[in-house]
């Protein structure tokens, strides 16, 4: 039933002639929840850019299933400092996710507005709709950006460190919300994360990037693997 959405075959990336990722293969199928973990500089961001099509691999190829059109993919990037005090209403931010399906048509249609409203409701931020983005807390801002990502695509969400800078309670809420989107609505998730423990708790597949040997497989296998054992040994 589940079809393969994205398949990476022997992919390598390099930055300034320095190779960051070497010979990596993995795939994401519909309904999967994949967490990409690894230390700083292991190429998580580079790989994300590759999946989004912003950077082409130096070797190998990233194949997207024909079912996955560009307006099926939602993206939650890391926040920039300039964004935190941006004067825009929550609605303006959320509806900007619809742009990818507008093409050259300049104005939003009724359908776009309805979708924005639906996603605002879905993430429980109706009360914030007319507030200014800059007046929101970090967790609220992340929810707004998640609603925008849902406006951009409903089959696959790519989340780049979605809990950075959030307090533990809000972090937990965010993880729950993402899990719910995956389980209840069948949206595939690719999440870049620093937090290996939470990754193993929520995701069903893990990609651990490591320059020498990367791991890709189910979470169960990951915990049993030498790499996973290193992180989860105390729990055993």
């Amino acid at each position, binding site marked *: 039933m589940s079809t393969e959405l994205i398949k990476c075959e022997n992919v390598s990336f390099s930055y300034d002639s320095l190779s960051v990722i070497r010979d990596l293969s993995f795939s994401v199928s519909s309904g999967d929840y994949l967490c990409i973990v690894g230390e700083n500089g292991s190429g998580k961001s580079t790989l994300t850019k590759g999946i*989004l*099509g*912003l950077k082409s691999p130096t070797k190998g190829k990233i194949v997207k299933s024909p079912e996955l059109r*560009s*307006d099926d*993919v939602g*993206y939650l*990037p*890391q926040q*920039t400092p*300039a*964004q935190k005090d*941006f*004067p*825009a*209403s929550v609605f*303006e*931010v959320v509806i*900007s*996710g619809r*742009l*990818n399906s*507008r093409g050259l048509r*300049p*104005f*939003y249609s009724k359908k776009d507005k309805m979708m924005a409203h639906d996603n605002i409701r879905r993430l429980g931020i109706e009360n914030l709709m007319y*507030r*200014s983005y*800059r*007046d929101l807390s970090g967790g609220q801002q992340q929810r707004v950006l998640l609603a*925008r990502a849902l406006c*951009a*695509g409903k089959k696959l969400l*790519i989340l780049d460190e979605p809990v950075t800078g959030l307090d533990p309670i809000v972090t937990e809420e965010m993880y729950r919300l993402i899990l719910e989107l995956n389980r209840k609505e069948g949206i595939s998730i690719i999440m870049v994360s620093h937090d290996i423990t939470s990754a193993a708790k929520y995701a069903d597949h893990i990609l651990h990037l490591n320059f020498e040997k990367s791991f890709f497989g189910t979470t169960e296998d990951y915990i049993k693997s030498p790499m996973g054992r290193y992180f989860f040994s105390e729990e055993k």
Partner: protein
Amino acid sequence: MIEQITEMFQHSFMIRAMIGGTLVSLCAALLGVSLVLKRYSMIGDGLSHVGFGALAVSTAMGASAPLEVAVPVVVIAAFLLLRISENSKIKGDAAIALISTSALAIGITVAQMSSGLNTDINSYLFGSIIAMSQRDVIFCSVLSVVILVLFVFFYNKIFAVTFDENFAKATGTKAGIFNMVIAILSALTVVVGMKMMGSMLISSLIIFPAIISMRICKRFKTVMITSAVVSIICFFVGLVISYLYGSPTGASIVIVNLCTLILFIIIERIKKVIIRK
């Protein structure tokens, strides 16, 4: 006073200054919102210094139409400054300062060596109310039509690129082209506005209205509209003051902007106190 204002518009140079200045203020305010929010305000400042250098050198070399020389030079500078700001975030501000002071130094040296600091150079530095020619007014009109059309039809894309370039790129908007177009239009606005405002002061037209409207506006659309309105009103008040009291035009407009900013900060504070109660 009303008599004096009606009298003011009997001079054709004042009508030109009025029309040209209003259009430049409008263009600068719209572009400014995007530039300021993207942390590119220094580009406006850098462009004006490069513009001065180019004008001074071409005047010294006896070019019949110095503006035609300045436009391509400043457009090229816009490309360059944008590249610097995009690629090397850490050293970007220093690099812009290096470029702008160098251009200024070369301009002043060449001008003084060739003819002495004449009134032309002085008016390029600090602006002049009589500087707007018929051709400048036509240039301003075309430029503002282009900018208005761009901001109306691509408003949503400009919002997306300004708010979150990474997201915009990832979802298929060509953010690089928008940055480039905005940088080039800023270059043109700076060159044409420089004659009246002076190259030392023109970047204020880009930065002040955006900062002022961001004090009290909470939505992007209202920020845009408010800064356009504020910019035009400040320009008009500054121009009238400059005419009535003989104060320098560019400087008067900047001071009016400054007063407006202070007023808006006070309004913002009062609003906060009221909301807390």
